[in-house]
């Protein structure tokens, strides 16, 4: 496309189909960075990654480098990683703990809250030089149940409006898996990259229809080891549902096929003793009904537009690098207040499927890369997302649901994408 307008971006998404340019056109990517990632709430990390004062992680908002940190007062902040003097990156380590940041170029020193503490040889500045106006620039930051979101747009809606009550309830169900309501993000990170558009992973995160053809080799292993057939979850006769939670956020609820009050640890089941200790601690905190609800639901998936995914034992931070390059970090979630064995089983269960050598995600990524190739065949440029479109169920809480193999989540995500990509407010 040349001289693209907001309306042109809108033409790439119809209710039941998506144009290949939405995944392949560099102009679309530029607009996503400017219009979505730089103007709306995005996920930046979990507070558990930075438990101590001075802990920091490098992150990106769109293409902009930021420092995700806990300051000297214990407050979580997202600061632009750019010296306010001559723009050197003040933080060069990917993660660590610091008392502050000193720019390596001319020695300007910043505190963890971003304030400019000192500059060398200040006598050569005039009386107008005002350190209080030269702190590191901040993004707006809010967190819910430890999940931290940031926006570069001072006029953005409050985070609760962006997330909505349905997503907030999902975050409660994740955080409450810890009997003390606290997640520990201290078990490292898988980093994977692929040669395909970032939205191919978004679509895949809440897509039940792909599971049986793509993950057949893994499902056969699980069946051989445990007798449990994961493929039953994702046939068209499965009772499992996909939910559109509004604003492009979606969930996949597999609890209907998990035995009540059990945890889905295929191949890596904890001992009875460890599991019962964990379950009893949850019951003490929440009562039996909610404890079993949490356990049964814990194999579910959550996607928060645009760059957050939660699946089973990890959350995922997606970083688009270019129209066909994507970097992803997967953080295993450890539960505070459970026997160590439970957390170790969560790690082993995670590794079997995820990461660059895992048995499941590696095949998803292979499919994304083949998808990027296929999308360039433009004689008929449309990709179809109509499955189950006539069978959507609207609920009183505002959600819409469909059967697990329906393409309801694709329609939800692309609907939100179209809305933001065509927003006149952001066109400038």
């Amino acid at each position, binding site marked *: 496309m040349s001289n693209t307008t907001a309306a042109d971006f809108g033409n790439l998404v119809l209710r039941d189909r998506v144009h290949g340019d939405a995944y392949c056109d560099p102009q679309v990517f530029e607009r996503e960075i400017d219009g979505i990632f730089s103007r709306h709430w995005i996920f930046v990390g979990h507070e558990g990654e930075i438990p101590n004062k001075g802990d920091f992680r490098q992150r990106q908002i769109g293409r902009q480098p930021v420092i995700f940190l806990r300051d000297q007062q214990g407050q979580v902040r997202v600061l632009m990683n750019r010296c306010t003097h001559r723009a050197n990156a003040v933080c060069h380590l990917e993660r660590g703990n610091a008392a502050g940041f000193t720019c390596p170029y001319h020695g300007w020193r910043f505190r963890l809250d971003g304030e400019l503490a000192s500059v060398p040889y200040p006598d050569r500045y005039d009386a107008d030089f005002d350190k209080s106006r030269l702190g590191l620039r901040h993004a707006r930051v809010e967190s819910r149940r430890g999940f931290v979101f940031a926006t570069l747009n001072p006029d953005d809606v409050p985070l609760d409006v962006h997330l909505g009550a349905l997503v907030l309830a999902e975050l409660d169900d994740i955080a409450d898996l810890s009997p003390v309501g606290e997640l520990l993000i201290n078990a*490292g990170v898988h980093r994977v*990259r692929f040669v395909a558009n970032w939205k191919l992973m978004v679509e895949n995160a809440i897509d039940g229809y792909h599971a049986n053809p793509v993950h057949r080799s893994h499902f056969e292993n699980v069946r051989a080891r445990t007798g449990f057939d994961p493929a039953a979850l994702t046939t068209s006769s499965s009772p499992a549902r996909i939910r559109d939670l509004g604003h492009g956020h979606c969930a996949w609820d597999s609890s209907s096929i998990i035995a009540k009050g059990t945890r889905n640890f295929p191949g890596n089941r904890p001992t009875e003793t460890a599991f019962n200790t964990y379950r009893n601690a949850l019951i003490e905190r929440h009562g039996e009904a909610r404890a079993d609800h949490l356990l049964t639901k814990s194999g579910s998936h959550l996607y928060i537009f645009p760059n957050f995914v939660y699946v089973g034992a990890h959350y995922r931070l997606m970083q688009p690098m270019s129209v066909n390059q994507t970097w992803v970090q997967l953080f295993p979630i450890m539960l505070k207040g459970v026997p160590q064995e439970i957390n170790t089983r969560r790690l082993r269960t995670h*590794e079997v499927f995820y990461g*660059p050598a895992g048995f499941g995600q590696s095949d998803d990524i*292979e499919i994304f890369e083949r998808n990027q190739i296929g999308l360039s065949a433009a004689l008929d440029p449309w990709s179809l997302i109509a499955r189950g479109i006539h069978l959507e169920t609207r609920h009183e809480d505002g959600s819409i649901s469909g059967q697990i193999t329906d393409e309801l989540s694709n329609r939800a995500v692309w609907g939100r994408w179209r809305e933001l990509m065509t927003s006149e407010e952001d066109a400038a």
Partner: protein
Amino acid sequence: MSALLERVQAFLYQEADLADRHVYSDWLALWAEDAVYWIPCNDDDADPQTHVALIYETRSGLEDRVRRLSSGYAHSQNPQTRLSRVVANIRTIELPDGLVEVRSVCNITAFRRQIIETLAARVVHRLRPYGDGFRIVSKTVYLVNNDGYIGNMTFLI
């Protein structure tokens, strides 16, 4: 060269050749029943009980890996990655329990879908004498990029 080093070298070369040629069942047969295969993630010193690994597998996990690769449905190895590896800098330490600790380095050149990549690692094997050769009791692979973003790593390392 000592007789032990010569036997260890022959064993490591055999393992490397089987992995390069994707001869999965023969590669699996080199491992002991009580084997542990570990590729640390993020940090060479990470404790696998509390820190995620790229691979942390006992015998059953290795069997699952090989069953999957042999199934015909592992898309990420269809087509297979073309592999050529060099194993070098081999040193042996005889341990009091009769095992042999072997320290080596490994450079793997991997080619798939017009992209050629290199993986490099320090490797520590613990080998149990078995007949004329050995069985692998543990193998730990310290990749130089274990904290980096990694693409397809589904072939045998």
